[in-house]
C-alpha cells in the first residue's frame, strides 16, 4: 500500500481540468442551457424590455423615474393603485374565509357528498372571469334578476353593482376554488396525534383550534392569502365588465394601451401592478421554504368523527355555497338562451349564431380551441422536461437554480404584464447595442398563433412546473443513477419510467394548460391579431359593444369546452389508474 502513495502527484484537481468525456453528461448540459435560453427569451428579456420602456419617453429618450413621478402626481392615475389594493384585500378576506370553512367541511367533518361539493366548488376555474361579471350583471345589474325582483314578482334589491361591489363579488367567486384547494391540502396534512395530545391534556375545542389547527395550517393559510390577493389584484376580466368608473390597475393598463395608445404609461402601470405581486410572491416563497422542516416524517392522518350539529351546520354552509355558484352559472346559461332579457323570455339559441356582432364568432371559438390544444401539448412537454432537467440532473447546479427561479417567477406575472411585455419585445424591429443595430430574430412570431401559445405557456408555467416538480420529487432519486450504472441512456429511462409513472401529473398539467388558455383574456388581448380572433377576447369585445347576450353565450361555450376537456381528463386518468393499479397501489 505504501508504494502506491508515491505515485500520487498533485493531481489536476481544478474542476476545469476534469474533462468528462461523457456524451450523456454533455447532452444534459446542452438541454439545461437550452432551457435557460428559453426562459431568458420568454421571461427575462420581455420583462426588461417592459421595464426600460417605463423609463423612457414616447420618443425613446431615457427619462429616469419621470414617468413614475408623473403617475403618482396624477390622482386620476394613482388612485387606481389604492382601489386595486382595496378590492383585492376585501376579496382575499371573503375568499379565504369562505374557502377555509369549505375546506374544513371537506376535510374535518363527516358531511356526505364531499366529491360533489368539491367538484362544484371548482366550477369557477373553468370559466373566464368575464363570465363572473356577466352573470353578475344578469343578477344584480340594472335589469338584473334580483334587482328587478325576479321580473317583478318580488321586491327588488339594488346592490349598486358597478364598481367595487361587483369586482369584489366576482373576484371572490374566481379565487374561492384556489383557496379551497390550498386550504384542503393544508388541513389534510395534519397529525392526528396532536389532536389526541391536546384532548388528553384537557384542551377544549376553541383552545385546540387556536393551538393546533391554526398553527398547523399557517403556511397553507398564508399561501392562500397570497394567491388570492395576487389573482384578484391582477385579474382583468371581471373588472372590465362590472368595474364601471371604478379604476383599478388592470383595467388602467388596458385603457392606456388600447384606449389611448399610450404604451409608456401602460408600461408604468404594469410595473406598478408588478411590484406588489412580486413582493407577495417573494414573501410566499420565503415562507414556503421554512415549511419543509416543519412537516413531521411520520404522522398519523386525522380521520374526522361524526358530530351531528357541526356536520349539519357545515352541510348547510356547503349547500348554500354550491347553490350560489350553480346559481351564478345557471343564470348565465339561462340568460344566454333568453331572446331579449328581460322582456322576451323565450328560450332558444338566438345568441349562439354570433351574427351581427363583432368578435369573430365561431372562428374565434375554434381558434381558441386550437390555441389551447397547442398550449397544452407544447406547454406540458416544455414544463415537464424543464422540471425533469432541474430536478433530476446533477450538472450545472447554478444554472439549474437560476432556471428554477425563472420557472416559478411567472407566478408573479399578471397576464396583462406578459402581454404588454411581449408586444414590446417581439414587436421591436431590433435593438441598438453599443452603436450597432441588431435586428430582432424573433419578430416573425409577432401576431401569429405562436406568440399566443408562448404567452400562454409562460402565463401558466409556474403552477404546472410545480405540479411536475412535486410528481418528480416523489420518484426515487436513484432511478437515474441505477440506469446510468447499467449503461442505459437517461432518455430511455425518461420515456420508459419517468413519463409513465408521472402520467397522471402530466395529464393534469395538460388539462390545466388547456382550461386556462381557453378562459384567459389578459395576456392574449394584447397579442391576438385581427385575422386570428379568440373566444375570450370576443367576449370582452362583444361586452364592450354592449352585446352582452352573445358575450354570455360565447362564455358558456368556453365553459362547456372546458368541462368537456375535464371529463376527457377524468376518463383518461381513471383508465390509467385502473391499468396502473397493479403497481401504484401498495
Amino acid at each position, binding site marked *: 500500500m505504501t508504494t502506491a502513495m508515491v505515485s500520487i502527484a498533485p493531481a489536476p484537481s481544478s474542476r476545469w481540468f476534469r474533462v468528462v468525456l461523457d456524451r450523456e*453528461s454533455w447532452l444534459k448540459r446542452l438541454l439545461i442551457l437550452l432551457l435557460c435560453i428559453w426562459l431568458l427569451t420568454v421571461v427575462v428579456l420581455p420583462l426588461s424590455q417592459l421595464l426600460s420602456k417605463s423609463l423612457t419617453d414616447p420618443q425613446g429618450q431615457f427619462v429616469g423615474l419621470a414617468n413614475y413621478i408623473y403617475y403618482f402626481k396624477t390622482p386620476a392615475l394613482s388612485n387606481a393603485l389604492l382601489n386595486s389594493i382595496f378590492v383585492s384585500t376585501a376579496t382575499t378576506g371573503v375568499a379565504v374565509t369562505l374557502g377555509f370553512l369549505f375546506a374544513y367541511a371537506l376535510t374535518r367533518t363527516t358531511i356526505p357528498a364531499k366529491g360533489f361539493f368539491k367538484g362544484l366548488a371548482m366550477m369557477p376555474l373553468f370559466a373566464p372571469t368575464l363570465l363572473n361579471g356577466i352573470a353578475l350583471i344578469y343578477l344584480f345589474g340594472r335589469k338584473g334578476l334580483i334587482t328587478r325582483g325576479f321580473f317583478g314578482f318580488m321586491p327588488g334589491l339594488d346592490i349598486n353593482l358597478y364598481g367595487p361591489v361587483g369586482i369584489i363579488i366576482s373576484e371572490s367567486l374566481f379565487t374561492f376554488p384556489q383557496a379551497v384547494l390550498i386550504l384542503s391540502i393544508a388541513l389534510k396534512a395534519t397529525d392526528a396525534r396532536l389532536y389526541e395530545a391536546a384532548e388528553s391534556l384537557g384542551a377544549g375545542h376553541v383552545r385546540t383550534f387556536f393551538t393546533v389547527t391554526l398553527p398547523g395550517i399557517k403556511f397553507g393559510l398564508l399561501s392562500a392569502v397570497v394567491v388570492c390577493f395576487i389573482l384578484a389584484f391582477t385579474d382583468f376580466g371581471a373588472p372590465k365588465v362590472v368595474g364601471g368608473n371604478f379604476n383599478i390597475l388592470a383595467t388602467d393598463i388596458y385603457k392606456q394601451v388600447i384606449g389611448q395608445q399610450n404604451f409608456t404609461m401602460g408600461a408604468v402601470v404594469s410595473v406598478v401592478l408588478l411590484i406588489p405581486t412580486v413582493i407577495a410572491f417573494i414573501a410566499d416563497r420565503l415562507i414556503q421554504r421554512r415549511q419543509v422542516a416543519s412537516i413531521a416524517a411520520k404522522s398519523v392522518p386525522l380521520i374526522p368523527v361524526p358530530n351531528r350539529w357541526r356536520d349539519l351546520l357545515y352541510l348547510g354552509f356547503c349547500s348554500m355555497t354550491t347553490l350560489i355558484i350553480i346559481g351564478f352559472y345557471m343564470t348565465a346559461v339561462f340568460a344566454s338562451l333568453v331572446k331579449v332579457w328581460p322582456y322576451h323570455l323565450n328560450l332558444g339559441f338566438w345568441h349562439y349564431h354570433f351574427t351581427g356582432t363583432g368578435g369573430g364568432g365561431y372562428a374565434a371559438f375554434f381558434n381558441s380551441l386550437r390555441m389551447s390544444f397547442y398550449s397544452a401539448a407544447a406547454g406540458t412537454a416544455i414544463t415537464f422536461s424543464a422540471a425533469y432537467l432541474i430536478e433530476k440532473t446533477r450538472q450545472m447546479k447554478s444554472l439549474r437554480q437560476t432556471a428554477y427561479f425563472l420557472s416559478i417567477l411567472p407566478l408573479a406575472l399578471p397576464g396583462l404584464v406578459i402581454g404588454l411585455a411581449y408586444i414590446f419585445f417581439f414587436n421591436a424591429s431590433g435593438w441598438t447595442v453599443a452603436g450597432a443595430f441588431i435586428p430582432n430574430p424573433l419578430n416573425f412570431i409577432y401576431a401569429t398563433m405562436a406568440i399566443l401559445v408562448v404567452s400562454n405557456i409562460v402565463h401558466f408555467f409556474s403552477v404546472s412546473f410545480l405540479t411536475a416538480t412535486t410528481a418528480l420529487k416523489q420518484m426515487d432519486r436513484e432511478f437515474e443513477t441505477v440506469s446510468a450504472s*447499467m449503461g442505459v*441512456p437517461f432518455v430511455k429511462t425518461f420515456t420508459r419510467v419517468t413519463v409513465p409513472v408521472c402520467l397522471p401529473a402530466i395529464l393534469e398539467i395538460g388539462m390545466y394548460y388547456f382550461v386556462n388558455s381557453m378562459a384567459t383574456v389578459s395576456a392574449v388581448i394584447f397579442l391576438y391579431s385581427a385575422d386570428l380572433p379568440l373566444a375570450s377576447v370576443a367576449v370582452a369585445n362583444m361586452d364592450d359593444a354592449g352585446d352582452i347576450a352573445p358575450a354570455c353565450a360565447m362564455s358558456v361555450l368556453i365553459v362547456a369546452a372546458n368541462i368537456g376537456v375535464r371529463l376527457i381528463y377524468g376518463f383518461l386518468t381513471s383508465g390509467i389508474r385502473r391499468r396502473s393499479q397493479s*403497481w401504484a397501489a401498495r
Partner: protein
Amino acid sequence: MGSEEIYLKAEALTKRFGPFTALSDVSFEMRRGEFLCVLGPSGCGKTTLLRVVAGLEHQSEGKVFIENRDVSQLPVSKRNVGIVFQSYALFPNLSARSNIAYGLKGQGKNRQAIRRQVDELLELVGLQGMGRKYPAQLSGGQQQRVALARAIAVSPDLLLLDEPLSALDAKVRIMLRGEIRHLQQRLGVTTIMVTHDQEEALTMADRILVIDNGRLVQNGTPHEIYDNPATPFVAAFIGAMNFLPHVTKIGDGLYGLGEHRFSVTGENGSRNLPNGTQVTIAIRPEDVMVQQTRAEPNTLPTRVKAMEYRGPMFRLNLQVPGTGPNGAHLEADVPAEKVRRLNIRPEIKLPVFLPLDRLRVYDSRLLPHNISGDSRI
C-alpha cells in the same frame, strides 16, 4: 498483497462538498472476488466513498484504478458496476422481469437470450415464477432480490451495495445476509458493501474498512477488527468495550490503576509510550472472567452493582474498589448457567480476572469525545 492480483485500488481519495470534507485521504486495495465492507456510523462518509468508487460522485482529489486502469474520470456508465441502493430504486411501473432485463436490452442481445438470462437470474435469487409481479406486489426481501438480480444482470466487474439490508426486518435481514454472501462467492464478483451494522460487516465481509469522520481508521479482516481494534473508536463502534481510564504506565507491559496492577501482553504501539503516561485500558465484556478461588495475575476484587438479564447470559455491572472517588466500573458478560452456579447476586463481592492477552492499551489522548470515563457501548 501482490500487485498482480490487485483488482481495485483507491488512492488518497478526498471528497469535499463546499467547506465540508466528507472523505479525507482514503486509500485501500481489493483483490478480485473479495467482499469488502465499509463500516461506520451514519454521516461518516462511507456512502460517499461508495459513490466515488462507483463514479456517481467526483472525488476532489485522488484516483481510482480498476485492474490498473485509471477510471477516475469515467462516469458511472463506463465503469461497469452494478449498484443496489438502500431504497432498491426498482422501477415501479415495470414488472420484476422488466426491471431485471432493463440493463440487458441495450446490449444488443436478442429477445430469446434475454428471456433465458432473466429466467436464470430469477432462479439465482430464488424468485422463480415471480417475474410477472410488480415491485409493489413483492415483499421487502423479494424487492431486494430483484434489485440484486438487476445489478448482477449486466455482469458487472464490481458490485456495490449501499446499505442493502437496512430497510428489512431483522429475520429477513439475517437470511439475506447469508444469501448475498453465498451468491457473491458463487459468482466471484468483487463486492463493496456499505453498512452501519457491525454484525452485518463481521458476518459477511472478507475485509472491513472502518471509516470515521471521513477517515479510514482501520482496514482488516473481521477478526483483526474485533480482536485488535486500532483505536478506541473502532473498539467502541464494533461490539461492546470496557474502557478503564486514568491508568498509568509503570513499565513494559505493566500498568497501574489506583492500587491495582495489570500485566498486558498484547500492547498495540503503547510499548513506545514513556513510563508515567496516562493510558486507557480496554477489555471486551465477554473477556472479563469470573473466577472464585485460583490466584491469577490481573485479578480485580469487584462488587456487583447491577445485573441485566439477556437471556443466554447476564451483563454484570461491576464496581472496582480503590479506584478513586467515582470508582471504575466494568461490565462483564457471564453465561446464565455460571451466574446460577456461582450464585451471583447484586451487592456480593466478585473477584474477576482480566486475561493478559485480551487487554488493549490506548493512549488517553486518542479517546474520542463520546467515550468518557467508564462508558460502554
